[in-house]
């Protein structure tokens, strides 16, 4: 063994917690073990989640297209004014997709993992290495303590004790040989391992975070929240799925008192021209094809628009879902848009705000075209059904309105992991809260004229321990014992039971 002077000196880092650590790694470890860090992260994530809930979020399908993002953000100007730009830069319109939000989740995950691993040895030891044999001084104090005197010898009493201790508890230790003075110790408990259920809870939390980012990591998850398909129309899902969904019909029914009764969409899904599924979906009854789920989410009106060029060739014909509500053109009106000229020109289609809207009367559509790059307005027109307008060499016709089905389409391979994790969490919480640990130590000692039994109990919460100890006492008294002493907590439990018996008598 090297001499003391030759031993390598390990660098010591003083932390603000005045705990001496022996390396940078240990300092990092302690940092991530910090409960303060966990609380701060949880508070930050909760605040960010609140922001993401109250601030309208950009539809995920727009995130990959800068032009669409810009258009959408411009639509927020009337609501947020000069703050719109700052909010966009901070990612408040796509908060749950930002790097900083995911970073907070990642750090919290690491914090939970490190904290859990850090506490595991102590918790495991506490659960599995309980000191079962204790000395006489152990019984001197305790919230749940009692003693009973017997005329019999310690050996005779020791033979009856296990039966008294059992019944709801498991006797895990009893001395087979008496001490020099004839004393013997016993230990019984129940659910001693179940406090480890908190680790199931922590594992569940970590798995939920992993499940939440799994799809992003693997690159095959997507979520389209504003996927509108007009009745009688089809739409490609994209995202590499090869799926096309056709809307056979949207159905909306009410109860006689006017309350909504049912919303459903009859969908057909094809791939490479072959029909692979047809189903009528409802809100909680989606269509699932190879992990891609189609949920009924919303509905509304779409405007059938046709645009022809100067030679009469159709350059656009489609049903434009008016899926957004916007104040861009005055009062809040349903709105949608489509593109012309290889995406260089965007045409906003705006419906009426309803009764009293004199600018866009019910049944009319207001159309406004502008160049995407410059925001420069090109033309505008207000059309009734089957009315046309000539604009810069184009003939624009509003044909009719029709209903569209609003779907939420997505694939999330991490969802199964989230379901498993949630189950683990619920299971872990149940184990911790509904199965508390109960421990009972007992010692038989010789006393003049017989022997005495000392009892002491511990529980993670009250957990009915007092009642259990009273029952042990009753069994001991039935076996010939006389109560010598009982702690205040047990006396109170006794009085309570007595009152209940009198009340029910």
């Amino acid at each position: 063994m090297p001499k003391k002077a030759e031993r390598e000196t390990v660098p010591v880092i003083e932390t603000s917690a005045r705990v001496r650590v022996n390396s940078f790694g240990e300092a990092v470890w302690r940092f991530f073990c910090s409960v303060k860090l966990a609380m701060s992260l949880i508070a930050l994530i909760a605040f960010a989640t609140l922001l993401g809930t109250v601030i309208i979020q950009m539809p995920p399908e727009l995130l990959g297209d800068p032009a669409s993002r810009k258009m959408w953000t411009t639509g927020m100007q009337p609501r947020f004014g000069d703050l719109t730009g700052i909010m966009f830069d901070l990612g408040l319109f796509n908060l749950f997709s930002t790097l900083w939000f995911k970073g907070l989740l990642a750090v919290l995950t690491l914090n939970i993992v490190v904290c859990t691993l850090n506490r595991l040895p102590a918790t495991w030891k506490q659960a599995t290495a309980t000191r079962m044999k204790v000395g006489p001084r152990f019984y001197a104090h305790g919230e749940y303590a009692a003693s009973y005197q017997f005329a019999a010898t310690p050996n005779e009493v020791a033979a009856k004790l296990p039966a008294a201790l059992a019944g709801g508890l498991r006797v895990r230790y009893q001395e087979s040989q008496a001490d020099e003075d004839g004393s013997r110790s016993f230990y019984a408990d129940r659910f001693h391992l179940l406090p480890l259920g908190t680790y199931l809870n922590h594992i569940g939390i970590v798995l939920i975070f992993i499940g939440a980012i799994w799809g992003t990591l693997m690159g095959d998850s997507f979520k389209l929240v504003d996927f509108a398909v007009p009745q009688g129309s089809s739409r490609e899902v994209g995202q590499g799925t090869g799926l096309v969904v056709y809307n056979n019909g949207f159905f909306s029914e009410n109860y006689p008192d006017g309350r909504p009764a049912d919303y459903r969409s009859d969908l057909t899904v094809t791939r490479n021209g072959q029909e692979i599924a047809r189903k009528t979906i409802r809100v909680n009854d989606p269509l699932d094809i190879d992990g891609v789920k189609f949920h009924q989410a919303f509905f509304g009106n779409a405007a059938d628009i046709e645009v022809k060029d100067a030679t009469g060739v159709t350059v656009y014909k489609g049903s434009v879902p008016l899926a957004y509500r916007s104040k861009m053109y005055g009062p809040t009106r349903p709105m949608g848009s489509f593109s012309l000229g290889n995406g260089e020109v965007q045409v906003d289609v705006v419906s009426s705000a309803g009764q009293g809207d004199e600018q866009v009367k019910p049944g009319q559509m207001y159309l406004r075209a502008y160049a995407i790059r410059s925001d420069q307005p090109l033309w505008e027109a207000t059309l009734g059904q089957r009315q046309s307008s000539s604009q810069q060499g184009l003939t624009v016709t509003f044909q009719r309105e029709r209903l569209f089905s609003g779907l939420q389409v997505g694939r999330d391979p991490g969802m199964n992991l989230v379901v498993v994790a949630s189950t683990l969490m619920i299971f872990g919480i149940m184990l911790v809260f509904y199965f508390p640990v109960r421990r009972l130590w007992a010692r038989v000692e010789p006393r003049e004229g017989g022997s005495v039994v000392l009892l002491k109990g511990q529980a993670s919460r009250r957990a009915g321990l007092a009642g259990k100890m009273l029952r042990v006492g009753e069994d001991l008294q039935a076996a010939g014992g006389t109560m010598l002493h009982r702690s205040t907590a047990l006396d109170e439990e006794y009085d309570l039971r007595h009152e209940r018996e009198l009340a029910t008598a």
Partner: protein
Amino acid sequence: MIKQRINLMLVVTLALMVLAACDNTSGAVGSLQDGDGKAVGDLKNGQQVEIAIGSQPPGFTLSDWRGNTVDLMQTAKANKLTLVNFWASWCADCRAEMPDLEDTYAQYKAAGFAVIGVDIREDAATVKNYVQPDGKTALYSFPILLDLDGAVTKAYKLAATPSSFLLDSTGKIVHIQLGPLNPALLKDLTIKYGFAKLWLAKSTAIRNGRNAAVGLRGARLPWSTTK
């Protein structure tokens, strides 16, 4: 002082109740009949007509937006099937279904399918703006009647807009739709109530149109519309 205030509140409440019970239907442009065809002034005064499948709903005679008078029961008895559709121009679902009603009406009117639109509480100018946006050509050829005071709407106990009632040739209700109709529903209803043969010819055209929309014939548009 408190007693006087309480008395005043009681008087005001009673007065409001009396006003609410008063007849506010002018009936200036139409009349309402009970199930036996007898004219009634006000169904709120106790005469209740059942609105249910198998029953005969209240008949009515109203003027359309052009001023022509239409009688519901006469129309029902003159046709195999009559669809009474309650709507309003401010109702988006109503606007979405009306072209489909017009298509179905145009297809089957010769075979005895009638459609009567009943506009809820809008004046003739508003309805004309919607039905005849260019001032010349009416978009809908079926009669659109004006329930100016809402008496007919109330008699039919409507809580949802749009609502439609399908009557057979005896004037009895065979179907109630509380919500918008769509081409699929209209097809099912017309087939069920006697127009099945006419659908056989149309269904092939519809299927071909749908196949084109989903790219089964090659050309595929991001937003493609079929009828």
